[in-house]
């Protein structure tokens, strides 16, 4: 962290002055770790048509935190991660076993998770207000230890991507073909969903449940307008995620608005630009 602080102090911002505003410096480092993570996962969320699914996962993460709080676990985040991962696995299973459209299955799961979360949160006349912070999120409250955790997750996701992206992409393009070439389609999808579940749950506290899905959808949705192959797709998606996150954090500092919302708005503007720029491709 010391190294990071001394690096940031070189920046010409008022909050970068030595010895002050550590929360802002932490937040900057945190978004630099979180945003590539979302940039990467986003590509597959969009290719695999899972944007609604990732939204549902956010809801299950909230339920997990509610359950964790109820049970008095020291850090409800761990309960939430477990529940979200189980949710992801169960969802992948049900979707495979039924012939329902995936948006229907997601709708079923999502509403159940939210209902359960609210039920537990308000159980015994509990007050919902203590969960409000989850809805909006606060990147400024991030602690160095949590940044370390995020960095570990980023590493794991990059490893996962290196090992299994090819199989994942094949499964998404044509499951039967992928299977005939020895790809374990079910496990590819299950592991990917669980990765999203963990990332959403861990970063929810800082990004905010209401806008977290935009981070999983917008970077790649915009990149999709421009990219012609997977390399461009990943590059554009990640660069956009990082740039919008840094810009969003700065804006939120200047104007005092929520960081998550500012980042999302930047991404939305970027999406609009790419939409206009997109070539009528043949």
């Amino acid at each position, binding site marked *: 962290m010391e190294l990071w602080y001394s690096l940031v102090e070189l920046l010409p911002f008022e909050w970068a002055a030595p010895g002050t505003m550590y929360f802002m410096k932490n937040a900057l480092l945190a978004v630099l770790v979180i945003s590539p993570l979302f940039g990467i996962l986003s*590509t597959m969320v969009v*290719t695999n*048509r899972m944007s609604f699914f990732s939204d549902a996962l956010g809801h299950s993460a909230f339920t997990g935190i509610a359950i964790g709080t109820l049970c008095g676990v020291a850090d409800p985040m761990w309960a939430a991660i477990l529940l979200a991962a189980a949710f992801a696995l169960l969802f992948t299973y049900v979707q495979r076993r039924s012939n329902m459209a995936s948006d229907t299955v997601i709708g079923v799961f999502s509403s159940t998770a939210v209902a359960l979360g609210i039920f537990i949160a308000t159980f015994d006349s509990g007050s919902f207000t203590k969960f409000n912070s989850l809805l909006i999120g606060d990147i400024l409250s991030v602690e160095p230890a949590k940044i370390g955790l995020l960095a570990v997750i980023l590493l794991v996701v990059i490893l996962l*991507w*290196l090992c299994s*992206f*090819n*199989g994942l*992409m*094949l499964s998404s*393009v*044509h499951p*039967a*073909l*992928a*299977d*005939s*070439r020895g790809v374990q389609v*079910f496990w590819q999808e299950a592991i990917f969903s669980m990765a999203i579940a963990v990332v959403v749950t861990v970063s929810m506290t800082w990004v905010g449940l209401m806008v977290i899905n935009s981070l999983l959808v917008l970077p790649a949705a915009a*990149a*999709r307008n421009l*990219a*012609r*192959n*997977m*390399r*461009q*797709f*990943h590059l554009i998606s990640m660069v956009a995620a990082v740039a919008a996150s840094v810009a969003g954090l700065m804006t939120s500092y200047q104007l005092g608005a929520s960081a998550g919302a500012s980042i999302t708005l930047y991404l939305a503007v970027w999406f609009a630009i790419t939409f206009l720029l997109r070539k009528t*491709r*043949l």
Partner: protein
Amino acid sequence: MSIQKHGTSGPGCAGSCCLKVMDLGVNFGQEEVLHDVSFHLHCGEIVALIGPNGAGKSSLFRTILGQIPHTGEIVFQRAGGDKTRPLIGYVPQSPSFDRGDPVSVFDFFSAAISNWPVFLPTPKKLRARVESCLARVHGEGLLDKRLGALSGGELQRVLLALALEPLPHILILDEPLSGVDIDGEKQLLDMLDEIRTRYDLSILLSTHDFATLDQYADKVILLKSQVLKVGPPHEVLSSPEFQTVFHLDLGKGGIF
């Protein structure tokens, strides 16, 4: 999920690679999709599978690929009496791709044949390898096109090239001619003919295009839950079984 049951091989087919299906049955839950399916596929043969939609053609293919559990026996025998499972190249029924997905032919191909993550910069060697694979189907120029931008015939060629890498013993094509125009159809069939002689492999394909059967297929299997008729194309096409199964189609369209 793949269940493979390979029994011992009986007599016949000795000396050349072949696929022998005996009394095969497939059930999806309560529903019986295939029953009493038996046929042989010999080396260097093109066998066409015909039958109405829902006759179980795709299910039969996926069963041979080992993706669906079945009763009965599927026996493979390669040249020299080797009974291990042969490589099967599979060209799936023309999938519909999202036209906007940024997946290029190269991305798709290299993801299937190598472990190199496709989102990283491409090594020259891999690119050359994919290019040479596509050259087998005269598709070198398609390398940087997006999957969604391919025409029906181009897509079939890419899928065919993929099925040929690594070079299989048996090539299975699920309705390769659907969504392909007349020129593309002739090109594709000539290519299959060329492939089977050059690489000495057996080809099993399903089709609804009966006009070309006589010219390209060695054997035709009429399937509707079970094998109704097997034989040379003209024999099957003029059989009463064929008339019965396709009676309505002939009445309406009369194209066949």
